[in-house]
């Protein structure tokens, strides 16, 4: 805009007549209303609000007016331009909305198209099952302990109160590691149980000790639907002052409730393990038939083989001799330990009929388990 015009034109300006201004205003508003799309609106905008539009030209003439007339003219033009801009903005919003609606319709796709572009992976259910059990114990304050799979016989057997001629030692079909002289006297085996980790944990420090140890163990079974020579156990041990069989029961009840579900009966059968005394086998009431299949051939249960009970694992109060071998004073401390077979739990908890599926690595078996179990 120009600087204040001192030598203004005394002649009345045509373009600033109210009727002319109002007509220009109305024409602009009509043109905007008539614009059918954003392009037409853009043209109308240039025509009615651009530098060469009547209102812009009129506005420019204000400077030429005598000072006493400027205010009125300014007000007149300002109001007209305000109305025009308002109409423009309104129409702009309307047409954009129309356009958006149309474009969005045009851009519609079939969202049911399959999209397998990024293949999914999965973790093995035995891994995630072990982690779930670990987490349950970690939440109770336990640490997760581990040990080697090729283990010293002393740790796998002797320290667990299984001396060389113990009958239980031949019960376990052990893989023996070859000694440098080619014999079986290397003093090493593929561990047959996760129990040596107990000993390692006890040797590592003074009680209180609360540890859980999942891991691979080995026995010389041929692979079939219910056996595998390489399988997994989870073992838990607690050594502290005043630990009792009752504490063992409470802890397993918590685990079972978390892992399988509540309201199931547990059966505690006296059993024998050299490393615990008293020892027990834990049976879980079949969570599928709840015992209804027992002696009832019309309602067989695959999960418990119509026995009504599912074997969970073995447990007991740590034999004081085991504490002694690990350097723990049995006069002051006592402990409990238990071990569970993960394959069995996976079979029961997830209806897996054949153990070979867990071993062969067929992706069709593993994929449905995803990242968590």
């Amino acid at each position, binding site marked *: 805009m120009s600087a204040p015009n001192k030598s203004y034109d005394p002649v009345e300006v045509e373009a600033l007549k109210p009727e002319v201004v109002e007509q220009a205003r109305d024409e602009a508003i009509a043109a905007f209303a008539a614009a059918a799309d954003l392009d037409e609106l853009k043209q109308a905008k240039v025509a009615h609000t651009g530098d060469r539009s009547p209102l812009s030209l009129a506005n420019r003439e204000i400077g030429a007016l005598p000072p006493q007339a400027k205010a009125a003219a300014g007000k007149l033009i300002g109001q007209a331009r305000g109305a025009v801009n308002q109409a423009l903005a309104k129409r702009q919003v309307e047409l954009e909305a129309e356009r958006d609606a149309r474009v969005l319709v045009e851009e519609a796709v079939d969202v049911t198209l399959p999209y397998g572009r990024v293949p999914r992976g999965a973790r093995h259910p035995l891994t995630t099952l072990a982690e779930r059990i670990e987490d349950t114990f970690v939440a109770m304050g336990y640490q997760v302990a581990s040990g080697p799979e090729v283990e010293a016989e002393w740790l796998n057997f002797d320290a667990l109160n299984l001396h060389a*001629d113990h009958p239980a030692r031949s019960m376990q079909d052990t893989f023996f590691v070859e000694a440098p002289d080619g014999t079986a006297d290397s003093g090493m085996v*593929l561990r047959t149980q996760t129990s040596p980790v107990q000993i390692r944990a006890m040797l590592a420090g003074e009680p209180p000790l609360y540890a859980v140890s999942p891991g691979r163990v080995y026995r010389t079974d041929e692979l079939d639907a219910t056996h595998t020579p390489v399988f997994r156990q989870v073992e838990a041990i607690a050594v502290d002052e005043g630990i009792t069989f009752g504490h063992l029961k409470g802890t397993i009840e918590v685990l079972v409730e978390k892992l399988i579900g509540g309201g199931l009966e547990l059966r505690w059968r006296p059993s024998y393990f050299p490393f615990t005394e008293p020892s027990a086998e834990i049976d879980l009431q079949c969570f599928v038939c709840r015992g209804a299949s027992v002696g009832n051939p019309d309602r067989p249960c695959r999960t418990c083989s119509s026995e009504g009970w599912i074997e969970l694992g073995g447990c007991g*109060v740590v034999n004081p*001799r085991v504490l002694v071998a690990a350097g723990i004073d049995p006069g002051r401390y006592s402990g409990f330990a238990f071990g569970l077979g993960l394959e069995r739990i996976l079979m029961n908890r997830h209806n897996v009929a054949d153990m070979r599926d867990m071993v062969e690595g067929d992706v069709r078996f593993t994929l449905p388990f995803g990242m968590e179990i």
Partner: protein
Amino acid sequence: MRVPLSWLREYVDLPAGETGRDVAARLVRAGLEVETVEQVGADIKGPLVVGEVLSIEELTGFKKPIRHCFVNVGTANGTGEPQEIVCGATNFQVGDKVVVILPGGVLPGPFPISARQTYGHTSAGMICSARELGMGDDHNGIIVLPPEYEAGTDALELLQLVDEVLDIAVTPDRGYCLSMRGVAREAAAAYGLPLADPALLDVPPANSYGYPVKVADPVGCDRFVARTVTGVDPGAKSPIWLQRRLQKAGIRPISLAVDITNYVMLEVGQPLHAYDRNRVDGPIQVRRAVGGEELTTLDGVRRELSAEDLLICDDSGPIGLAGVMGGATTEILDPVFDARTGLASGTTDIIIEAAHFEPVAIARAAKRHKLPSEASKRFERGVDPEAARAAAQRAVDLLVLIAGGTAEAGVTDIAAPHPVRTIPIDADLPDRVAGAEYGRETVTRRLQEVGCTVVGTDVLEVTPPSWRPDLTDPYDLAEEVIRLEGYDNVPARMPVTPPGRGLSEAQRFHRRVGVALAGAGYVEINAYPFVGEAAFDALGLDADDARRRTVKLVNPLNDAEPALRTTLLPGLLGALRRNVGRGNTDLALFETGTVFLPKAEPKVAPRLPVDRRPTEEQLAELNAALPDQPRRVAVALTGERLPSGWWGKGAPSGWADAVEAARVVAAAAGVELTVRQAQHAPWHPGRCAELLVGEEVVGHAGELHPRVVKALHLPERTSAMELDLDLLFEDGRRVSGPPVSAYPVATQDVALIVDAGVHAADVEAALREGAGELLESLRLFDVFTGEQAGAGKKSLAYTLRFRATDRTLTADEASAARASAVAVAGERTGAVLRGA
């Protein structure tokens, strides 16, 4: 141990309505592992009766001998008329007593019996064999009963065909339960009923005129009872009740003398041996074997004896492997019947041995000779030494009763002195172990039920019974009390644990690796760690490749795979191939697990003491003997990594995916991975990346060598990666938050021409160094070779993004940094700007 319920009731007066299942449930809660309850004879339905053969007509003209018989079945058929039966067996004569099933009956199968026409005659029933009645696998034709039974008598009861049998898996500490006596004791305690102990017999005292026995090894043999019975009828057969009990217990009846020794063993748990006295040469001697001795055992096997073997000998040498199996030269002879007189000749004078041997010696011998017998199974687990005399007496009584023998008055009983074992136990120990309140009275009563003698108040002096060698310390006794009171009745409670520390950094890392790889599309597998030479050959490993040095197993499942893996690849690639074979073609698999690397100088892991904590030195020696067992991760890929689809073309998996998988793992570890071109089996020599952290090689990745792919029958271009997770893991790592600049970025592209052999990683490193600290990021966005790049050259195009933390960079500053980057790249790699 198979326990017929009818037999068990002889010692415990169980409630009449109690079924096998009921008894099993009680025994299970007392700690006996009852595996099954077999319903014997449940599939047989009568009428099954004793029949007397009245006439036999041999039918001819058939492929096999057929007999048309009339059999007197008394009034069991309702008419009293002889029953007409056609029979295919020939081992009976007119006048014999046989077992007949009449029409309407059912034999196991099920095989319903009805009158029918066969071989031109009516057959209204069947004359039965032992096998048809489910009594055993006796193939000797039909059963001929002793003559005293009357025709028409119910044979279901006579043959004790219907019963329930509890099959009990006896744990090693419960040797006494390998007998009816032991199981009955548990049943009595479980029901709170008195026990009729079959070992409570009147036994004459030892004297000096029994069969002479010399025990040279009183440690190996601390008890030897010998009794003699003469004038036994060599042709006498075991009565039906005896045979039936043996059959139900799972032992085949053989001959009267052997059946009786087996029967007494089952009854009281004492293994016995019967010698033909006329075949024993001089006094019986018990000693260890001397070098070069041999023995032919009852099973006809000639065995070389070890100096550790405990033997029963006579003047001729070994006549038995003590506690395991007798020898052939002194065994009871099979009777030979004189065809004319019908009289039997054979063994008439019998020596019964009832001895007690040291468990470990017997266990070792049975293991050494691979000869686990009913006797060795019991001796290993501990036999009641005080039952020897009663067992011998029981056998003598039965021989006299059944075989018409005469018991000689001589009683040999050699016993090494046994100290009385007394165990002091705090009366409240069971309470403390269980976390329950039993009280002294209950503790005392339960220990007495087990057979212990108990005296004292606060501290009980407990003498365990002779049949419980497993009870050696107070905790053994506490277990007995808790078990009999019922584990189910111990109140459950939670221990109060100290504050937990959660997972360790390494454990969290291992989980992260699995999550990251699964998130990147890999599926986890768990392969067996067993490998053989063939696996290493297929991988194309050199003869001196370190991975061929393995930890070996003495007793592998498969002789072709005697070693433990030193790399995860064989198992992983095996799983890959198995998947491909099953039609899963696009695969990305991973495995994490340990490999087993033998020590440079393999050692033997020491057997440490168990009566105290080993010293740190001892433990260090033990751990030093173990192979290194680092944790690894490996991936294998084949087929499409990104599938084609309506969205466009996919991408085959390849070496770059394998390298990227390593970067995914490194990212989970939070470490920087350097990639270097390398040559390493089993990878393609031109497509193998060596993976480093700092200067340490942590693994390899790339496409597999075509020869390996071929040897393992894998799809072409299969790729793989293997990485050592232990080397990757760094404890206590912490990321420092980088400053995030709010100033604008200045982006500069640069296209460089280098020799085709120059590695992109080197160019990138040079660019980064030259660009200096203003460089925020650098990305290679194009690589090409060909005419435009020039012969033997390649073009690498990068986008460099510069940014300062404290100001907006000027165009000059950004250009200067770019020029510096190019200059260093030029210096280091010979790179020149394209078009320059």
